[in-house]
């Protein structure tokens, strides 16, 4: 399968993963290894940044994984920039998943603060992957300030509701010059395959893997679904037929004309 390039990194796997909600760090480690995922996001608030033996970090210590610290928990641009700076120092990476959700209930991203923070973080040399609403205009604005990708949501985070924003995702994919990673709401491998068939560059999955009865098997299932979707996209899906074809041609009169 073709690889995906974001900033200066090449990814063979187009499945990105999260580290929350697992029943233990050991299960997390096994599932993420099985997923083949090469980009793994973790909440700053969950890790002890000054502790190398931190329970989460120590289980992510594999060459396969690139760490993508996220700013989950911050409520505005200022807090996000500060949190990203701490993460850069502690985890030795300038990659950051920018998440600003002032609403703690549905964790929906704040577009105004996200754009502001992205602008500032790019200026400070970060590789910024912003989590946003499936808003095509916002995605273009983020691309213009220099984010390395955009991460629009399929439906509210943790909802497992699939691609409820599909009309907007299609526009974002069509218009984007940076990779589009569908993040949040993907609840089943079929949702991920669908996103990839539409031309998304990658999917980020957490809840659906972590909360399943068998996270290792579910991680593999998502890996296969993402690959299948990508392959189908590259092979080009046949056009959908929406209606029956007329049995007698409507344009046969053209043959009678010169």
């Amino acid at each position, binding site marked *: 399968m073709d690889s995906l390039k974001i900033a200066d990194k090449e990814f063979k796997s187009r499945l990105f993963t999260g580290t929350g909600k697992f029943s233990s760090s050991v299960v997390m480690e096994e599932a993420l290894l099985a997923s083949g995922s090469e980009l793994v996001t973790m909440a700053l608030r969950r890790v002890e940044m000054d502790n190398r033996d931190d329970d989460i970090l120590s289980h992510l210590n594999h060459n396969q994984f690139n760490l993508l610290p996220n700013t989950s928990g911050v409520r505005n641009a200022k*807090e996000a920039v500060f949190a990203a700076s701490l993460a850069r120092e502690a985890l030795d990476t300038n990659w950051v998943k920018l998440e600003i959700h002032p609403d703690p209930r549905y964790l929906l991203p704040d577009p105004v603060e996200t754009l502001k923070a992205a602008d500032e973080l790019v200026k400070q040399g970060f590789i910024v992957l912003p989590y946003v609403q499936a808003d095509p205009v916002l995605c273009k604005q983020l691309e213009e300030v220099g984010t390395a990708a955009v991460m629009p949501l399929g439906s509210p985070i943790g909802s497992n509701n699939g691609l409820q924003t599909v009309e907007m995702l299609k526009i974002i994919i069509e218009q984007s010059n940076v990779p589009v990673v569908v993040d949040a709401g993907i609840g089943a491998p079929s949702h991920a395959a669908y996103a990839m068939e539409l031309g998304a560059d990658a999917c980020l999955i957490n809840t659906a893997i972590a909360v399943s009865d068998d996270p290792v098997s579910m991680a593999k299932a998502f890996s296969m679904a993402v690959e299948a979707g990508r392959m189908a996209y590259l092979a080009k899906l046949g056009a959908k037929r929406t209606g029956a074809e007329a049995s007698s041609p409507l344009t046969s009169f053209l043959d009678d004309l010169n």
Partner: protein
Amino acid sequence: MDFIDHIKDINWSDIADKIYSKNSSDVERALAADRPSVDDFMALISPAASGYVERMAVMSNRLTQKRFGKTVQLYVPLYLSNYCENQCVYCGFNSGLKIPRKVLTIEEVKEEAIAISKMGFKHILLVTGESSKKADVDYLEEVFKTIKPYFSLISIEVQPLSQNDYERLLKVGLHTVYIYQETYNSNTYSNYHLKGKKSSYSGRLDTYEKLGRAGVYKMGLGILAGLEDWRVDTLFTALHLRYLQKRYWRTKYSISFPRLRPNAGGYEPSFVMTDKDLAQLIFAYRIFDNDVELALSTREDRLFRDNMINLGVTSMSAGSKTNPGGYAQDNDDLEQFSVNDDRTPVEVAEAIKDHGYEPVWKDWDSSLQ
């Protein structure tokens, strides 16, 4: 419009009548609702739903896993002072009781903080009686500064403060404030709260508005089960929760379920909430609100707590001492109530793991605020 204005025309006995008239088809409708309403919640906490507890448990398990994962957060209370200026008939810190009183010195606070952090805790709840003479905001500010290096999330359960004082504490690391109305029955509230600032029903209720305006990260609500009919009180709590979520939408919410426990005051509960009632209530809350945090303290016994790990609860205290100085020293005669689950934090964490859940010690970082 504040919450007190919202409920001034809502009659306690009307609510009771509504709850007790719910039938099984109301319960079925509530269980099938995409976003259950307060009216649906009435059905879920009604006696009519008692036959649905198993189905509710299954839903609660599934909904909680989806939102919170297979995790339970752990926190520990640190009692700073048992001085109190209130006379609440049910409480072991009642100012009318002749009991030894103590407020920890800053040096003692530091010793306790070190003892607690050695147990592995990163989330701490500071508790005091309600005395603005013995443990005022200046004292609390000092405590925050002293313990901040040891913890990533600091909560308080202390006397109501002014908006300005909450803002002050937010600057030095305050995250969550737990404040319990105890009962929403304005007619009987004064029977339980005889003296002190807490005797003002409206003053107590206004605290939540102050917290919202100050912008605390999380607010914890709750009633004291045993005072009034828990079903009616719970319904008022749900109205309060919905009001707060709409008005102070940046704040997170948590519900606690204290039940009256034996204490030095020897107050007997007049309305009993059974274990089965409490289980039904926890499931009902989860179905009503998929996102609200549900906390269970060591007031509940080990068997109940262990069985609730995967059924809706999202945070638990462990290894709790309810007397000031209880971690570094030992003097039980100061305690607010005797705990029902006296396992060590490591033992509680093991029980959580045995249920296939991950005990979470840290879910916040002081750098985020």
